[in-house]
């Protein structure tokens, strides 16, 4: 079996741009879902009571529906309902954010609830107000505890950008398909794609592991 990797070098620019889109999409949807997740979790824990069932319903729904379905619906169906047109990238960004924010919200909630109630009691005894307690005692500890789960979520985010290829977002997966289809050399192209994704993902999980181990003591009470 003769492998000819010149197809990679010939399409180097094209594929590298794909990696750029992958990273951009991952970071953008990652950041957006992080913010949305925090807002949702805080609204659920400290917000108006009537909002809670709606948030829980949203979170449980995103746990039940595949990312593929969310992305496809966002790109093909949402324009019909909302009367707007959107680029594949925009649809991918919205779809991923909506899906991942549910998981982010759960991570934030679990992190906050894992801080011992004794901490809040001690802070109250010192005379702190509830917003102060959240900001200065609970959240700092909770943030440390959330780190491993967020690292894992970032890894999932990067992997999910590959699914956006289905709605023609020009990220790496899509471009690999294109090159593989045109050159009739799927082995070389897909092996290359595997290598790139592995190189992107492996440091994320390892890095989060190591960083967490250094700061874990800050979240322990």
């Amino acid at each position, binding site marked *: 079996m003769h492998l000819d990797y010149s197809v990679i070098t010939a399409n180097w620019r094209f594929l590298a741009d794909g990696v750029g889109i992958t990273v951009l999409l991952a970071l953008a949807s990652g950041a957006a879902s992080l913010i949305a997740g925090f807002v949702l979790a805080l609204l659920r824990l400290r917000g108006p009571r009537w909002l809670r069932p709606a948030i829980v319903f949203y979170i449980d*729904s995103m*746990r039940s*529906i*595949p990312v593929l*379905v969310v992305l496809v*619906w966002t790109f*093909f169906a949402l324009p019909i309902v909302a009367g707007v047109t959107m680029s594949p990238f925009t649809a991918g960004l919205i779809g991923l954010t909506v899906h991942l924010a549910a998981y982010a919200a759960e991570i934030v909630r679990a992190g906050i609830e894992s801080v011992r109630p004794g901490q809040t009691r001690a802070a109250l005894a010192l005379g702190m107000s509830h917003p102060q307690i959240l900001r200065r005692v609970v959240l700092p500890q909770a943030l440390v505890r959330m780190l491993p789960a967020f690292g894992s979520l970032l890894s999932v985010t990067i992997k999910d950008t590959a*699914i956006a290829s289905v709605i023609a977002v020009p990220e790496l997966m899509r471009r690999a398909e294109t090159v593989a289809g045109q050159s009739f050399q799927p082995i070389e192209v*897909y092996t290359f794609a595997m290598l790139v*994704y592995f190189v992107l993902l492996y440091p994320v999980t390892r890095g989060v592991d190591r960083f967490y181990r250094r700061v874990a003591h800050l979240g322990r009470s």
Partner: protein
Amino acid sequence: MTLDWSVVWQYRAALAEGTATTFLLTIATMAIALPCGIVVAGLRLYGAAPLRALATGYVELFRNLPLILVVYWAFYVLPILTGLGLSALATGLAALSLNVTAYNAETFRAGINSIRRGQVEAALALGMTRTQALRRIVLPQALRRVLPVLASTWVSLFKDTSLVSVIAVTELAYVSMQVRAQTFRVLEMLTAMAVIYWLLGYPQAKLVDWIQRRYAVSE
């Protein structure tokens, strides 16, 4: 914009078949990935150095690759590498199994490692062999801990079956999108697809929650 929701009813047979394939894929994958996961975990924990490295490499590889890429790779590359002509369904099953086995191996490994060393020592002090200690003392306790994680993996797997639609396996997502293409009823079919997944996935997610509450471990 006129909506015609009757298409969903019209094509209910196809959708039902697609749903059945989705369930079939999920069950078959787990049936393969559970024992394989145990074997890989065993190699990683107790195997000789080269086997241990191989098992670890396998787990780290498949945990750090997008599943959709593995599906494509299996579809285009496996036939060339192995000379086998597999159906799309079998290919999809292979890709899913490779992926879930790696996650299960990690789950089992973490579960076994979470059992305190003192338990093994107490078993050895009674005169048990290492195998007896594993079988009678460690595994029964570890099983309790891995159950919630395995339940969660099951639900993820159920959703991930949608990815094999890209190689034209006739599970729910593929069938829904085919009907959409044939009838041009985009909003209706895509919404129906989402709703069906929701109806199937929601109870499973709730079941996982219940399992996690019931089997929660407090040290």
